């Protein structure tokens, strides 16, 4: 939903972003230890302290940590004393940012700290993700995330929307772009490799990694005080589709298209798009659904094919898009996050910098 459509009163911006390096294993640090430097970094960028923050919201998943209530200890890292106004979504941090955005819209807070983190390394991610499928009819068969993405890729190839060479080029471009991103996990020339699940090869699949990310939001004048060129959220919306793959057209993403429309993405062209497309074929789906022309710079950070930390990758897309606006490298950017098998749930945010 666009800001103009909703309250029409408050401008809200991303004013700071920080992330860890994305690493295959982080055995030497706990989740809290992984998160702490990011929280300090994002606060330092604005000069704010925990006590100055009006609302805090985080995203994570117990299933990655392998234990219930894993987020409760992460809150200790925030330093929630005196007590803070705080909430948590069991979703990617992009949705935590959405909750924080609505909180700022109500006027109850002027600033928000949003963070998310995920450590995939303690378990086997492909196995773990099968546990988010329909628990009675599908999960007992353990179809893994790569196999499901391969169904989607094959459907696209069968529909004539892409081919294996085009998919390989997406992976190669992403990792080439990631050479400029010191936080990315897979950078530079990476061999396309053997089939993991046909038609997807190693190069079509995201690396499995651990990371944390944090963003600070601020409303109106507060944003201008905290950031030289705030990345104003002109609209943000998210939509979900049916869970069962059999009732979805895997070559399309109606939920991404609707979220983009509601976020106002189609009102004016964007110059940059940070897409959360963990598998190469998903970029093909999203480029069409989001009506991105060839002149749009897609995933200058390298995107999810270069680094895909669960629960943080979506928030990182928003952070990367905002950071480009902060640096003056973009004037209007689209940021996208996804969740669930084969792009089931999608969030789109439109960010703008003030004219220079």
């Amino acid at each position, binding site marked *: *939903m666009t800001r103009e459509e909703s309250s029409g009163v408050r401008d809200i911006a991303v004013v700071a972003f920080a992330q860890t390096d994305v690493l295959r294993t982080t055995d030497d640090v706990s989740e809290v230890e992984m998160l702490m430097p990011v929280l300090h970094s994002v606060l330092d960028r604005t000069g704010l302290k925990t006590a100055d923050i009006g609302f805090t919201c985080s995203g994570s998943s117990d299933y990655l940590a392998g234990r*219930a209530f894993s987020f409760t200890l992460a809150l200790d890292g925030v330093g929630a004393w005196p007590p803070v106004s705080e909430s948590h979504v069991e979703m990617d941090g992009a949705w935590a940012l959405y909750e924080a955005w609505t909180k700022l819209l109500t006027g109850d807070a002027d600033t928000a700290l949003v963070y998310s983190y995920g450590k995939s390394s303690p378990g086997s991610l492909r196995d773990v993700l099968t546990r988010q499928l329909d628990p009675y009819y599908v999960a007992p068969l353990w179809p893994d995330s790569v196999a499901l993405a391969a169904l989607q890729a094959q459907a696209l190839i069968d529909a004539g929307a892409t081919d294996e060479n085009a998919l390989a080029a997406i992976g190669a471009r992403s990792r080439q772009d990631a050479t400029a991103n010191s936080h990315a996990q897979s950078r530079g020339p990476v061999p396309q490799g053997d089939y993991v699940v046909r038609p997807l090869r190693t190069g079509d699949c995201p690396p499995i990694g651990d990371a944390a990310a944090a963003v600070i939001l601020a409303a109106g004048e507060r944003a201008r005080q905290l950031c030289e060129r705030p990345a104003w959220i002109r609209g943000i919306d998210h*939509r979900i589709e049916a869970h069962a793959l059999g009732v979805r057209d895997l070559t399309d993403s109606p939920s991404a298209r609707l979220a983009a429309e509601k976020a106002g993405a189609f009102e004016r062209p964007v110059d940059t798009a940070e897409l959360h497309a963990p598998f190469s074929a998903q970029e093909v789906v999203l480029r069409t659904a989001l009506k991105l022309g060839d002149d749009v710079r897609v995933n200058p950070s390298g995107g999810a094919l270069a680094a895909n930390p669960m629960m943080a990758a979506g928030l990182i897309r928003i952070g990367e898009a905002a950071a480009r606006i902060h640096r003056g490298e973009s004037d209007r950017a689209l940021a996208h996050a996804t969740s669930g098998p084969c792009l089931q749930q999608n969030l789109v945010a439109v960010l703008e910098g003030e004219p220079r």
Partner: protein
Amino acid sequence: MSKEPVAVVGIGQTKHVAARRDVSIAGLVREAALSALTDAELTWADIDAVVIGKAPDFFEGVMMPELYLADALGAVGKPMLRVHTAGSVGGSTALVAANLVAARVHGTVLTLAFEKQSESNAMWGLSLPIPFQQPLLAGAGGFFAPHVRAYMRRSGAPDTVGSLVAYKDRRNALKNPYAHLHEHDITLEKVQASPMLWDPIRYSETCPSSDGACAMILTDRAGAARAPRPPAWMLGGAMRSEPTLFAGKDAVSPQAGKDCAADVYRQAGVTDPRRDIDAVEMYVPFSWYEPMWLENLGFADEGEGWKLTEAGVTELDGDLPVNMSGGVLSTNPIGASGMIRFAEAALQVRGQAGEHQVERAGKVLGHAYGGGSQFFAMWLVGARPPQS
């Protein structure tokens, strides 16, 4: 700046039981959602967004179950948010949904919370075998019992108070058709004679494990004007959190709980909660938490909460009824328990609580807490819309 007033126009609950083997998780949540839609005389098409909450995914063994539940809750093509704030989640979920309406992002929102504990093993789900971190030992009771002891020592409360709460709540539950425990032969002596589980908490002073779901339809002023039955109006709502464990923490009366209540009272213009608030649906999973929270929420001075309980003030026909529905002590689908408190508060001000209705319930507080007494969510609802 102005916020849109938020009204509760539909409430639905399942009959809470130990195991709903006749329905899937999807069937369970759909039952509560349909019941709320029926109450509001709305259809799925009237719902703009869905906000769902539950306590840890490990309780059913499904990771991020909202993905699988999107179809069952009519969310396809709509926004769907999933909240998780431990035991307070049912309350937090309602507040996140309310914010969508208050911010004028959506007009009408379905919010729902559930737990189907029979799908898995909650004791296992609560066991955290992490090195160098404090284990919760034998479930939540083992964690909270020392805090109850600390309260008794600090307040000088006689050790009979806990059983009074349990006896009251279990009798109240007999008047609530949705309550899990219907102990028709309950007596105070039976509560007092029940086995000691975590000293001083007895078996009958402990919440059950339930399967159940609770749903509410929240809407804006225009939606409330179309509602077929009287709406409950949100007069104030807040969340507060503090760290799990630290040297300065008061586990008996956490600062986050006090701050949360103060924020709600400020929003609602409540200056004297004991006088201004007519009844409370309070998160009391172990009986002693009634007197403890009476103090934490400002209904009694420090050390005085147990006196209200002992004097019968919190009885259904008392001056400040607490847990008219039977409370968490009678019904505990963990993820839904907080939302049931919020929904029961709304039922009271709508005058629709049936046999457990309190007369002249103009303003009722719904309260939830979670984690190591660190997450708090509360709302105050009233029969009349907010004045501003």
